[in-house]
């Protein structure tokens, strides 16, 4: 049937049936029908009269009708799919992970072997592309050096969509182990490829499992701390093939061993280890986590991770406000005395409308009591509120405090007292909204001594005291019975009173850009003064210092410099963003974010480069810039104003190798998804002989419209001739009869 239709119409039956018919009718359909009827009647009736033969008349009418139909030049418009005879873009992973030897031969060798015979793509028009940190065209595979510290596969696929690799791409072949360093949204790029009809056929190289390997799979360490902080590093170690063996996790800080933790591998494949890291000296520190390679280990490069952490020594301004004289003022001052980075102001309301100011820098600071404007309050980084009821801190003050946390990004510590929380009338208040705890009815009569202990099943990262210390610390007085934490809040410390549900003593959460902690005890100083506590005991100091340090960490300034990646590999682009806010921390839009500011980058060899900011395309309050890290070592970044005053600074450590040796097994899931979602095929290296055929079948096609002039087709000629012959035969038979 198909061949019949092709021969007589030049199209498939399906195309013909789906096509649309057009006639060139100068006087409309109705007239056409009238003319056809008239002709049929005249010719049919006349001929019937003459021949007295109905079949002949019908044939004659049909013939006349066909001829009349043909006079209107009938045409059929059909749609047809046509394969594009374009280029095949062959993308080859050029990253350093391709040098990994999975067994007997490296991944790079596998690629070279694929092209060695020269015939896998000889029938195609091919554009060869090397995919690494950037995408670059190459003439031959011999140009591949497999030394890129990153493999931005998604960026390369996006280049296809964007037409950067030619405008007539018919299909893509991607040869990779699946390691993808790109930050671009892969799903979005795949959707665009699919919409363009470009299939990606993928050849996966490398092993999906390593027989013998130990890997530092993940290191979690906050990138910025306050000098003197002790923070906890969380390390995930994976192993295969070494069950029953013992290893040691060595942690070095600035090339000095600070801890070694023994680990016994059982049958588990993954181990989580936490290690405290203390950063005493201000500045950038290198922290390395290493497990010495074992015998027969496939990959030694993934046994060590080095990261950097910045110990800040910028002063932190703390305002402690008390609505009445309290010993908490004295003992908080004592606890923070040795924290040289803290500039503590205490504002104590000693009588109605009379304030005692301690630690102020000049006669005007806080002279009118609690700050009355955002500009006045936002100069502080941390606000500590003690005994101050909702009558004293009215709606205006509470709004200021809320914005101090949410917009300015400050830290807020709320202390317990008879004038705090629900007991201070804060239920359903603006301040209550900022709290990590749920306030219920007032409990004016509640007063109990509570044994304070860490909340169970919570990581003890905020307050680090030994179990023995928790046991011997005296009870503290609770007058604010808090029992419920808000969703997302962390309960750090609980208070235990006989036969009562545990009280929430210390709870924390993030609120807007800032942080809030509630310490619901009336007399934390009891940990300093109690007879069971020796004068050299630092438990109270530790409590208050660690809360203050947690609150003071990462407090945004008016100018914020952000480096996108914590680990930067040689040759990688260092992406930098700058955000500036006004004195009241309102975002500055467009080029206001960087106007009058200059970025100075000092390279490890001492050169100074000056990348220029441009407005971000994704956020209206960001300026962005970048530079290529061409040296290993430390880059110093400094944003200065017109007067060369440093507004923000940061440092970037550039490593020789990136993340290419981590999770370096072939990622078949990722590669398969690329092929599947674009309509391509996922092949192993053993199936590459099918590649030419697959490429051909998956080449991009186009839908084109075709007009078939029916009156010119062989079908029409045959129809007319056929009817004429039938009519002649009928007449001849009638004459013989």
């Amino acid at each position: 049937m198909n061949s019949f239709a092709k021969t007589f119409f030049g199209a498939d039956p399906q195309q013909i049936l789906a096509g649309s018919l057009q006639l060139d009718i100068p006087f409309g359909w109705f007239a056409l029908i009238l003319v056809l009827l008239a002709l049929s009647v005249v010719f049919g009736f006349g001929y019937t009269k003459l021949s007295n033969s109905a079949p002949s008349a019908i044939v004659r009418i049909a013939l006349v009708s066909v001829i009349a139909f043909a006079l209107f030049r009938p045409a059929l418009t059909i749609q047809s799919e046509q394969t594009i005879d374009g280029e095949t873009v062959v993308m080859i992973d050029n990253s350093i992970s391709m040098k990994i030897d999975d067994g007997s031969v490296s991944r790079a060798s596998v690629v070279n072997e694929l092209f060695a015979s020269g015939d896998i793509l000889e029938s195609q028009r091919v554009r060869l592309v090397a995919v690494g940190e950037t995408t670059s065209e190459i003439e031959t595979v011999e140009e591949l050096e497999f030394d890129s510290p990153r493999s931005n596969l998604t960026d390369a696929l996006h280049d296809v969509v964007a037409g950067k690799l030619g405008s007539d791409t018919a299909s893509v072949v991607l040869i990779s182990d699946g390691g993808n360093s790109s930050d671009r949204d892969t799903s979005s790029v795949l959707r665009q490829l699919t919409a363009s009809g470009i299939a990606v056929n993928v050849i996966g190289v490398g092993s999906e499992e390593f027989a013998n390997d130990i890997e530092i799979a993940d290191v979690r360490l906050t990138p910025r701390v306050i000098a003197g902080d002790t923070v906890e590093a969380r390390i995930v170690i994976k192993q295969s093939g070494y069950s029953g063996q013992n290893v040691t996790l060595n942690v070095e800080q600035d090339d000095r061993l600070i801890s070694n933790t023994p680990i016994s591998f059982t049958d588990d494949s993954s181990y989580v280890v936490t290690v405290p890291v203390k950063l005493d000296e201000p500045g950038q520190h290198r922290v390395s986590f290493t497990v010495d390679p074992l015998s027969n280990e496939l990959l030694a490069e993934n046994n060590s991770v080095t990261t950097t952490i910045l110990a800040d020594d910028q002063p932190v301004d703390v305002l402690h406000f008390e609505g009445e004289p309290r010993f908490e003022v004295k003992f908080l001052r004592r606890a923070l005395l040795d924290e040289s980075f803290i500039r503590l102001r205490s504002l104590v309301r000693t009588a109605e409308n009379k304030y005692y100011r301690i630690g102020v820098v000049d006669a005007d600071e806080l002279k009118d009591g609690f700050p009355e404007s955002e500009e006045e309050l936002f100069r502080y980084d941390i606000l500590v509120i003690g005994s101050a009821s909702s009558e004293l801190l009215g709606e205006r003050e509470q709004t200021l405090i809320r914005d101090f946390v949410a917009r300015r990004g400050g830290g807020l510590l709320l202390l317990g007292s008879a004038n705090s929380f629900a007991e201070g009338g804060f239920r359903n208040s603006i301040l209550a909204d900022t709290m990590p705890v749920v306030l219920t009815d007032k409990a004016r009569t509640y007063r109990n001594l509570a044994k304070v202990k860490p909340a169970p099943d919570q990581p003890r990262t905020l307050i680090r005291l030994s179990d023995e210390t928790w046991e011997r610390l005296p009870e503290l007085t609770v007058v604010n019975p808090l029992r419920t934490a808000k969703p997302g809040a962390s309960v750090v410390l609980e208070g235990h009173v006989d036969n009562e549900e545990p009280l929430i003593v210390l709870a924390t959460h993030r609120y807007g850009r800032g942080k809030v902690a509630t310490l619901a005890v009336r007399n934390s100083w009891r940990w300093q003064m109690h007879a069971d506590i020796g004068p050299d005991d630092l438990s109270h100091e530790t409590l208050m210092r660690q809360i203050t340090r947690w609150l003071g960490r990462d407090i945004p300034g008016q100018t914020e410099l952000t480096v996108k990646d914590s680990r930067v590999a040689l040759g990688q682009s260092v992406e930098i963003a700058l955000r500036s806010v006004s004195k009241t921390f309102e975002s500055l839009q467009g080029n206001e974010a960087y106007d009058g500011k200059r970025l100075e980058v000092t390279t490890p060899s001492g050169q100074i480069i000056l990348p220029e900011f441009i407005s971000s395309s994704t956020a209206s309050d960001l300026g962005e810039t970048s530079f290529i890290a061409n040296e290993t070592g430390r880059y110093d970044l400094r944003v200065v104003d017109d007067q060369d005053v440093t507004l923000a600074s940061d440092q970037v450590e550039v490593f020789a190798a990136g993340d290419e040796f981590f999770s370096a097994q072939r990622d078949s899931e990722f590669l398969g998804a690329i092929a599947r979602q674009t309509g391509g095929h996922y092949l192993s290296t053993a199936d590459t002989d099918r590649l030419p055929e697959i490429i051909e079948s998956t080449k991009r096609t186009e839908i084109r419209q075709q007009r078939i002039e029916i009156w010119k087709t062989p079908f029409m000629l045959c129809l007319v001739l056929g009817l004429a012959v039938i009519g002649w035969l009928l007449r001849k038979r009638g004459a013989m009869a």
Partner: protein
Amino acid sequence: MRSIALTLTLSLPLIPAMALILSSIWVAPANADQYGELKVTDIAHEFYFTRGIYGEELDADWGPRWAVDYPKADLQFLVALKRLTLVDGYPSDNAIHIGDPDLREFPFLYVLEVGALSMSEDDVVALRDYLNSGGFLVIDDFWGSFAWDNFEQQMKRVFPDRDLVEVPLDHPVFHAFYDIKEIVQVPNVHNGEVGEQTWEYDGKVPHVRGLFDDDGRLMVLVNWNTDLGDAWEWADRPTYPLRFSTYAYEIGINFVVYGMSY
């Protein structure tokens, strides 16, 4: 929330009124039988005016030396403290031995008549720990060089390496609530009412001396050649000069506010 300079309005005009209020406080006469620990165990307030008990010796006329002016001076001072400040003070007396571990519940300690102070070794250790932990000790009502020598000797037992030094008038303790511009010699009730002399023995010049810790924090504040306690106790007597009782209350309140803040 606006601050107003209230120093004057809170001081001089109010003191006569305070005297009237104080005169209404009835205090039972002290006798030897009633002396002993009267320490508070249920701590409901922020501040306790805590009087330190020391020694065993009883004076024939006055009872034990630690209890001079006790408890009326303490109670009357607490009334003034409540009336003039926002300190949440316990309104009654709180006497506790300086060697008692429970002293550590009360970071403010008042001890007087230290001319005859004699501490056991346990008391010395307890007092040292108390002060090192953050306690604040106010000394009052001892006169002359003989008494000073004894007190200084006792304090050397507590802190052998620290000296009692003069506290300058620009120190925060003199400005924590009121601005104290001069050190006034406050006489005992007899001398104050007679009006001929304000000193006792050879203690003609009043001093405020202090003992500081390594961080410059005032741990011990010594009022030598002056008797604040008598001024607190007898402020309700019309014949006791107002300027002495005014000064005594002002500097006493400063001690409390400072002691709760530094």
